[in-house]
């Protein structure tokens, strides 16, 4: 009996080995047509309008959808996409978009488009956000975090359809960052025809789960926590796509992703660790891009003792940022002196680096009236982002630093990301390690969300810090399009922020990506999500 089974097994093995020998040619054909991207997490849905997580943006925006306009080139200039051109009135309050007439929506197993994209689709996509009475406004919760942050509803007074292919936005005031906001990955165009079909069958919620867009790829299959399968959009308006299948292999473990890259199971991986390991391999490439981001330690300024700016200062003196850069970013990041990264035109080199000095920290803490220190909790993001790949370790390092000045730190980490964020917005924390990634190149995307009162009061930032002077300066800066005067306003803001320290800027990091050498084409963008549109596999 054992001989039979042994024989069976050996025969089986031999057959396999033979097959491995003979069919390499066919393997090549299927795998050259497919790209496997190892991503760090599951998307929350398939509509970028309703999310802010970069994981979801990576998985959806540039793959499934297009925006009216987009950022292109090294200078991130605004360039046409769905809108072939646009026009702004002299007072800056009326903007007219002229749409392309040759754009097809995805044809999938669950929707067959009968017409091309037109002004109705654009109106539908934005009215869904603007009009709280809209049929689709409350589908998927009725929250549009990106648009809430930029005060989109206040800003846009009206959207009109001038003809089939012309749309006009009317703004309540001129806003120099409006176009930049429309060019982000959040402002995508959905299909009204698809929505009407869904309404007819009372299955509205499917609009954000089974997506229809105009982008280079269309949805095929998704299994939460496992994979997303996209196929090429055969009628894509821009140009032919080079790959047939795009597969997101969802691999939350850092080591798991790197292993898959090294073992050639993934063509591209997000957020690789152990960069040296990739660089030393001749068949792999490490890509990096300067991403406009910031990792910071935010204080809950509504809670004592963090409402005292001397306490915040003392903590700032005690944190050894250099050690953090070495340990967390392996030296591949810049120490942040202010919230603005050096690559932005609003960066002010006159803002000094915050000093690391234990003795000054102790003195300041004494001055603040806490000579014996205190106990605080520090919340560390339970997810990894380009700006902070390992918040837990960072929290441990900071806890070690603060121990030296008599502050005991309890690290809080054990929450799912959405619950974590919810508790932060409720102000449960004393201090939190969070971060910010800009969605477009305009520096306002740092100032308004991080320091503006309308944004901090929502709680996502974790500081609840509102300073009327800062708020005014930021608003004034948006009213003008003169870069020099805007820079002056921003310098003043940075000076106040440096003195008040509602948050301690820690690092500006780069975004990295590992890929096989045979994958060519730009994937990373300085802002927003990745794009597979121009990627090729040789």
């Amino acid at each position, binding site marked *: 009996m054992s001989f039979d089974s042994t024989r069976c097994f050996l025969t089986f093995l031999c057959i396999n080995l033979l097959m491995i020998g003979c069919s390499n040619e066919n393997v090549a054909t299927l795998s050259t047509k497919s790209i496997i991207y190892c991503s760090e997490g599951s998307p929350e849905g398939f509509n970028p309008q309703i999310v802010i997580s970069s994981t979801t943006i990576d998985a959806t925006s540039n793959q499934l959808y297009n925006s009216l306009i987009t950022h292109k080139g090294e200078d991130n200039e605004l360039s046409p996409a769905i809108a072939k051109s646009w026009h702004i009135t002299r007072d800056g309050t009326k903007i007219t978009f002229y749409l392309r007439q040759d754009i097809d929506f995805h044809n999938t197993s669950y929707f067959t488009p009968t017409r091309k994209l037109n002004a109705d689709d654009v109106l539908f996509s934005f009215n869904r956000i603007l009009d709280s009475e809209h049929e689709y406004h409350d589908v998927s919760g009725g929250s549009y975090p990106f648009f809430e942050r930029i005060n989109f509803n206040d800003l846009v007074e009206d959207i009109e359809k001038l003809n089939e292919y012309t749309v006009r936005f009317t703004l309540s005031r001129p806003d120099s960052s409006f176009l930049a906001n429309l060019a982000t990955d959040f402002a995508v165009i959905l299909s009204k025809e698809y929505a009407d079909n869904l309404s007819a069958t009372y299955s509205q919620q499917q609009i954000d789960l089974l997506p229809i867009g105009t982008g280079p790829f269309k949805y095929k299959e998704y299994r939460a926590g496992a994979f997303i399968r996209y196929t090429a959009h055969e009628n894509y308006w821009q140009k032919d796509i080079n790959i047939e299948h795009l597969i997101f292999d969802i691999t939350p473990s*850092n*080591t798991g992703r*790197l292993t898959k890259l*090294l073992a050639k199971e993934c063509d591209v991986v997000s957020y690789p*660790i*152990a960069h*040296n*390991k990739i660089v030393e391999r001749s068949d792999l490439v490490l890509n990096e891009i300067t991403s406009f981001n910031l990792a910071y330690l935010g204080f809950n300024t509504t809670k004592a003792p963090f409402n005292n700016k001397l306490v915040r200062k003392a903590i700032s003196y005690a944190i*050894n940022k250099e*050690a953090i850069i*070495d*340990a967390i970013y*392996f030296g591949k990041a810049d120490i942040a002196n202010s919230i603005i990264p050096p690559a932005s035109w609003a960066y002010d080199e006159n803002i000094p680096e915050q000093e690391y000095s234990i003795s000054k920290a102790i003195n300041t803490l004494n001055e603040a009236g806490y000579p014996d220190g205190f106990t605080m909790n520090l919340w560390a993001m339970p997810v990894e982002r380009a700006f902070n790949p390992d918040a837990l*370790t960072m929290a*441990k*390092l900071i806890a*070690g630093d603060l121990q030296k000045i008599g502050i005991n730190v309890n690290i809080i980490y054990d929450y799912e990301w959405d619950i974590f964020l919810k508790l932060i917005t409720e102000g449960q924390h004393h201090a939190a390690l969070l971060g910010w990634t800009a969605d477009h190149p305009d520096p306002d995307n740092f100032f308004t969300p991080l320091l503006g009162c309308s944004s901090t009061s929502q709680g996502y930032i974790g500081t609840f810090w509102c300073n009327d002077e800062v708020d005014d300066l930021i608003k004034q800066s948006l009213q003008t399009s003169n870069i020099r005067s805007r820079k002056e306003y921003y310098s003043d803001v940075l000076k106040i922020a440096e003195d008040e320290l509602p948050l301690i800027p820690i690092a500006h990091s780069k975004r990295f990506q590992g890929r096989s050498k045979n994958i060519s084409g730009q994937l990373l963008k300085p802002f927003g999500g990745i794009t597979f549109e121009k990627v090729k596999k040789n």
Partner: protein
Amino acid sequence: MARENIYQEEEFPSPLMQLWYNFKKNPMVMLAFGSYLALAILAIFSPILTPFSSSQSHLEYILLPPAWNDDGNVSFLLGTDKLGRDILSMLMHGASFTFGLSFIIVIISAVIGVLIGSLSALTSGFKSSFLNHFLDVILSIPSLLLAIVIVAILGIGLSNTVLAIIIVLIPQFIHITKNEVKKEFSKDYVLASKLDGASPLRLLRYSIFPNIIERVITQATLAQSAAILDIAALGFLGLGAPSEIPEWGAMLSNGVDLFYIAPWTVYFPGLAILFTVIATNLVGEGLRHALKQRKVY
């Protein structure tokens, strides 16, 4: 009048000494026994013996390779981890958790198991058959799976892991005690003391236990190696010791994130577990062999 002792007295070593003679014949086993003792000493005295405190971060020496590497530093013999903690100190301290706790776990579950097992050996009929079936069912659930479920009920953490593994190990002690006690009960010497009027408990205490204790110890060494592997596995899966505690399994799982940057953070805890389990197994093996040898004479 003193009697001259003209015969060379024949010495009969006690059974325990016989066991020891047989045990120490095998040099491999003795080596393992030595390591076992060393681990025990380490487990008790590690706070004094370690070069650094296992929780002390040396921020200027983050991810230092072992000393024999070109970039190494002699004061950190096995390198440091991502928080700059000395791996050697952590491993030494970890002996108290992975090895020391496994020892305590086995003693507790052996005591409980032997008590229940010997009592159940005295029962018969439906109760005994029910217990038998029940034990069969429990034994058919894999120990690690059962431990995982118990951790799920109690919550994640080291003390709950310990409790879970104690519970998981008890049935096998019940099983072996029951079988051994039943076997002994049918022997003549037990019958003799029964005829003397000894109560069942007295029988257990004075006649049977001394004869089965070695069996139980042998089983205990097996159980200990299983306990070490289970503690480490739960630590590795993130269900046991939290990452601040230098338990070897938890250390290994911390190291996995750094596997490609700092492979030593994975190699050394794994080697420590391997070494300890081998030492424990060899001791058990030697004990079993020695018991068998003694029976031959």
